[in-house]
Each structure stands twice: as C-alpha cells, then as structure tokens.
C-alpha cells in the first residue's frame, strides 16, 4: 500500500517544530507501524536526510517505550501499543498524521521522542517496597485471596507508556499513578507503606505538572493494557485515608 505521512519534525526541545509530509510506497499490510517508519527512515538516510526520531525498544508490546499520537489517538486506532499496531489497520492511499505525545510533563526531545522521566520520578518517590522481602517464599506461605491477587496483577500490567496522559484532555497521569498505587497496596508486602506511598506519589505527580482528573475515562479507553478506572477511585480512597490518618502533620 501507498501512504502519505504527516510527521511532526522538531530539531530539539527549544525548536518550534512543524509537520512535514512524506510519501511511502509498497508498504506491506503485515508490517508493524514502526517497521513502516523504518522503511521511511531508510529512504531518508539514503537521501542523506535526518531520519525521523521515535522511541521503541521491545517491539512486542511489553516495555512501554513506543509512543506516538496517530490520527488523533495515542498508539493509533486500535487499543494496543504502536509496536503491535499493524498496517492492515490503515487503508491504501490514506494520510496518516503522526504527532508526539503532548503534555507539559512530557517535553519533546526530538521529533516524536518525548521525555517521560516524570513517570520515573513518580515511581522513585514511593512506587516500591523498601523492606527486604527475603528470598522466594514457599507457595501459599503468605495467604493472598485470589480476587486480590488478580486485581493487583491487572494493575501491575501497566507498562508505563504514557498513553493515558496523551489521551486525557487534562494530560493527567491519574491512571498510571493509580495502577502503581493499587498494585502495591493490594498486596501484603506493599501494605506496610501504603499511606506514605500515596501521599508521596501524588505530591510528586502534582509537582511534575500533570493535570487533574475529570473522570472522562479517555485514559482507560486508550490504555493498551486496559487499566481500569476503578484504580483511580482506589487511589482517591488511599490518598484521602492517608491524609487524615498518617502522622505527617
């Protein structure tokens, strides 16, 4: 298939940037979206032009490194990661608009690459268990109800891609932060620090300049891992409870 690509090009963080149009020919419907961009970049390199910079790593939907806002949606038209999006989702002759994820907390580094370090700093502020949990315990030594284990595991599938922020009209990071808080506060090892964790992670989230939550649900609808909105409600509970009961005055 032949396509027209409208790609955001931006030299560096301080450059204003703008769209450039490229044509790509003979793209196979079985290619992934990133492979299609590889084809474009090979052509650009042959012509001696600067290739289009974009983030990627595992290319199998598990690392959360790929991004891109494709035709008005993070990770494009289907609810999956950009690396798992295939060209059969597009029609021959179509124009595809490719933009970086947009948020104050995700500044553009170059072209389509954004700095999602804000997520790392939120995790560093409390998204961990600091007690030594020792070696691998025997199965069922720590009793955890199946429903809670499932719920925690569902939350833990968040790959930190940032599509929730990209999709939200407020560029809010609530879905990501709530998945991380949920995953830990549902399990015994994480419960110990649940209150401090909620306070610290939310303080850091606000400090990074993410928006508030209007409960539109866009995040969950676009999340490649289908993280549920109920996690945000849980985070709110954790935070309000922590705020009225911790020793931190």
């Amino acid at each position, binding site marked *: 298939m032949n396509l027209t690509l*409208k790609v955001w090009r931006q030299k560096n963080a301080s450059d204003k940037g703008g*769209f450039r149009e490229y044509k790509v020919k003979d793209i196979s419907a079985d290619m992934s979206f990133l492979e299609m961009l590889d084809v474009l970049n090979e052509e650009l390199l042959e012509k001696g032009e600067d290739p289009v910079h974009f983030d990627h790593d595992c290319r199998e939907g598990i690392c959360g490194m790929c991004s891109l*806002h494709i*035709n*008005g*949606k993070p990770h494009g038209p289907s609810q999956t990661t950009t690396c798992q999006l295939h060209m059969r989702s597009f029609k021959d002759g179509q124009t595809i*608009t490719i*933009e970086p994820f*947009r*948020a*104050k*907390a995700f500044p553009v580094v170059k072209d389509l690459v954004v700095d999602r370090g804000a997520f790392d700093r939120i995790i560093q502020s409390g998204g961990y268990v600091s007690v030594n949990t020792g070696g691998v315990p025997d199965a069922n030594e720590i009793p955890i109800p199946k429903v809670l284990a499932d719920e925690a595991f569902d939350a833990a599938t968040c790959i930190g891609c940032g599509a929730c922020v990209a*999709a939200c*009209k*407020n*560029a*809010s990071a609530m879905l990501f932060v709530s998945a991380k808080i949920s995953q830990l506060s549902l399990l015994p090892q994480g419960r110990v620090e649940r209150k401090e964790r909620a306070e610290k992670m*939310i*303080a850091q*989230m*606000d400090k990074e*300049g*993410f*928006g*508030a*939550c*209007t*409960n*539109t*649900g*866009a995040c969950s*609808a*676009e999340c490649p891992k289908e993280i549920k*909105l*109920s996690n*945000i*409600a*849980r*985070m*709110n*509970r954790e*935070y*309000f409870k922590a*705020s009225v009961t911790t020793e*931190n*005055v």
Partner: protein
Amino acid sequence: MSWVTKTLNSTLGQKLLMALTGFFLILFLVVHLAGNLQLLIPDNGESFNLYAHNMAINNFIRSVSIINFGLILLHVVYSVILTKHNKKARPVGYAETDASTNSTWASRNMGILGTLILIFLLVHLRGFWYRLKFGSPDKVLLGDTEVDNAFIIVVEAFKNPIYVGFYVISMVFLAFHLSHGFASAFQTLGINHKKYTPLIQKVGLGFAILIPTLFAMIPIVMYIQSL
C-alpha cells in the same frame, strides 16, 4: 492545619471539593424543585407564596441558603482553578484528536456547561431573588398575614417567551452537566464498585433527565397558561 491545606491544594483535594460541593448542589436542586412545583398548584399562587414566605422568615433555611451561596461560589472558584491548571498541563495541543471515540461530550465540556449554568444562575437571581430582597414586591394577604407576592413576579416573568426559551435551554445545559457530574462525583470520592457503579450511573442519567425536565416544564406550562 498545614496537612489540611496541603491535601485540599493537591489535584485530588481540589477535585474532592468539586465533588462535595457538586453533591450539595444536587441536593439543593431537589429541594428547589419541590418548591417550584408548587407554582403549578391551581390556587392562584397561595401555596407558593406561603412557601416563599416561610423560606424567608425561617432562620434555619436562611442559614442554609447562605451556605448554599458559599458552596456555589466554592464550586465555581475551584472549577476555574482546575480548568486553568488542566489547560496548562498541555501547553502545545494536538493537530488532530479523536476524543469522541473515548469519552462523552459532556465529560469533556464541564467547564463550558458550568459557565452557561452560571450565566443562567446570575440572570435567574437578578430576576427573582434580587427583586424580592431589594425591590419593592407587591403584597398579598395570606390568612391575616401580609406576604410578598412572589407568585406574581414569576407569572410576569414567564409571560416572556424569550425568558422561557432561555430557561429551557439552560436546563438542557444542566442536564448535560449532571449526565457526567452525578456519577463522576462518586468516582472522585473513591466510590467505585462492581455492584454499585452501574446503578449509580443509571440513577445519575435518570436524575440528569428527570430533574431538569421538571424544572423546564414549569415555565412552559405557565407560559401556555398566560396565553
């Protein structure tokens, strides 16, 4: 009090205030509607005037109405703070968006809907509340007490088809605001449960349709009666 201000100044705390004041406003809508419906009792406004009179002389109700004004103000102030903060979180927008596939229109336009409701509230207060408090309303005899004839002010106002139209359209905006706001406030308070959330969403939608429809019905009926 530092932990209190810290919590209430966080994005979650500000939303908590939105939700709590929103809930209070929802309650207020129900009480207000119950009063308004007395306009439709065919007794030449006697019930309505009695109700308005009792509201005005009862100290408890007067304190509640001052709290009510305060909470509307708080809801509006925080809606401005939050909406501004949320705009700032995305300084460079997208060239292309496809939001209609992932969220409802009302949920994305709470600020615009709220502003339209605010305009209605101001016109509404100028027309009724201000005139009763600071104007010189006609008097009418109820038994042997002389009371303000609030009924006649309403009758006069609803003879104007432009005002009736403005009222009805504003109730549509309120309906959309509630269609998202009602269920959203529960989520903000952390109430999300497999058993109850689907019910809350249904009740919210029902509330968003029923209450504004009943409000809008009153000026329509009174306009028809005035013809």
